[in-house]
């Protein structure tokens, strides 16, 4: 198959995966806890016949706009190239989705979830949570080595086409996501309802593991893109051989596909597990207010995302 043929194959793969994710994951995301909730916020009966319909429309408009932007970017790569940007595009998908959807969710919570129900009693799990239960340290060491070697290659043998904002942004993404993951694991669980606490705890544990896994794969995706960039700009044999470039793009896309698969499978499992359970963070106790994410984590996330926007702006200017 020619190089263009491979590229078209990759693009077709992306479009299919994106279409499945769009339909099965994103479109009905606010309704995954049932019609009594909107993004885990308890709503009154008849909500979706009134105000709720507007909220749903706003959500659908956001999902459509994000996907439209991504589709236009993909079309631009398809028609004008360069094809290497496919891998960067794949990373952009993850960042754009997480940022816009988290923003929408926080906005919905601020507007609709001002007065969550308050329950007098709450349960707390006595299972200790440790970072080592969620991170595989040898894997982290391998990733750190890949990043370090990529930088050594770029610093020692980087060619004239090398643009420093690219590796800087990728490294920033990886390190930032790692810090966010640590914050996420260390952050507190929302309170557990006193009835069926074990089922709620299991759901929250599974949800935490799933999120960490998705973020892990995202980091691997960026690490792969960084390594590919370093090889292309620091190892002339790779840059000269179109097949090796195809291989690198292929590896990055394989990681991206595994990200989408993990996202969909995990979401499906969590939806099944969460049936009939009160969504986490949908109620308050006298000791703790309901929240989507702890404030400190939200601040960390937006600081990281702001830094990312700044880096992109600097690299474009």
């Amino acid at each position, binding site marked *: 198959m020619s190089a263009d043929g491979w590229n078209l194959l990759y693009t077709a793969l992306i479009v299919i995966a994106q279409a499945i994710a769009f339909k099965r994951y994103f479109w009905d995301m606010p309704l995954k806890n049932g019609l009594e909730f909107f993004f885990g916020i308890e709503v009154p009966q008849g909500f979706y016949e009134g105000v709720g319909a507007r909220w749903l429309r706003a959500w659908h408009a956001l999902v459509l706009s994000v996907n439209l932007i991504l589709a236009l970017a993909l079309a631009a790569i398809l028609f004008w190239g360069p094809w290497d940007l496919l891998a960067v595009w794949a990373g952009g998908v993850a960042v754009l989705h997480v940022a816009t959807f988290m923003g929408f969710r926080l906005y919905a919570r601020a507007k609709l979830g001002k007065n969550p129900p308050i329950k007098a009693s*709450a349960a707390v*799990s006595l299972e*200790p949570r440790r970072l080592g239960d969620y991170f595989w340290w040898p894997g982290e060491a391998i990733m750190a080595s890949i990043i370090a070697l990529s930088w050594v290659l770029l610093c020692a043998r980087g060619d004239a086409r090398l643009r420093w904002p690219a590796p800087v942004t990728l490294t920033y993404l990886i390190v930032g996501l790692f810090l966010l993951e640590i914050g996420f694991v260390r952050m507190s669980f929302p309170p557990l309802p006193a009835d069926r606490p074990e089922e709620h705890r299991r759901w929250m544990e599974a949800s935490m593991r799933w999120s960490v896994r998705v973020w892990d794969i995202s980091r691997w995706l960026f690490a792969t893109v960084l390594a590919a960039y370093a090889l292309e700009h620091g190892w002339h044999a790779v840059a000269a051989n179109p097949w090796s470039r195809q291989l690198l793009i292929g590896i990055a896309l394989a990681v991206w596909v595994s990200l989408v698969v993990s996202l969909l499978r995990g979401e499906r499992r969590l939806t099944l597990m969460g049936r009939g359970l009160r969504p986490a963070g949908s109620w308050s106790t006298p000791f703790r207010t309901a929240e989507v994410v702890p404030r400190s984590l939200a601040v960390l996330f937006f600081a990281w995302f702001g830094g990312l926007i700044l880096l992109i702006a600097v690299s474009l200017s």
Partner: protein
Amino acid sequence: MFLTVDSEDKRPLYQQIVDGVKALIASGELREGMGLPSVRQVAGDLGVNLNTIAVAYRQLQAEGLVHVRHGAGTVVSSRHGREVEEEELRKPLRSALTQLILGGRSDREIVTAVRRELKLLHERGGSR
């Protein structure tokens, strides 16, 4: 394994935690050598001050039910805790019995209630 706290309970929060951990140890759900979560984790999950949980853990430590092991955090020491005078053990029992009598329960009802609670405690931990 869970602790349940209730804002409508008249006991202070730290006492509810102490009593909850004791019940788990007594029922055998928390066994010797098992680790308890850090003060930070429990305080964060419940949304209460770190001090509240620290006071509860200190009390459990003072009673010999848990100890702090370097690198492992707070660990359950033993099911029985330190040696306590028989009279000291009887005090809370006497107080609870008084409450039940004042609440109009007959001796038979009290004995039945005590048996039921004991049975529940054993069933919960599958012990003894």
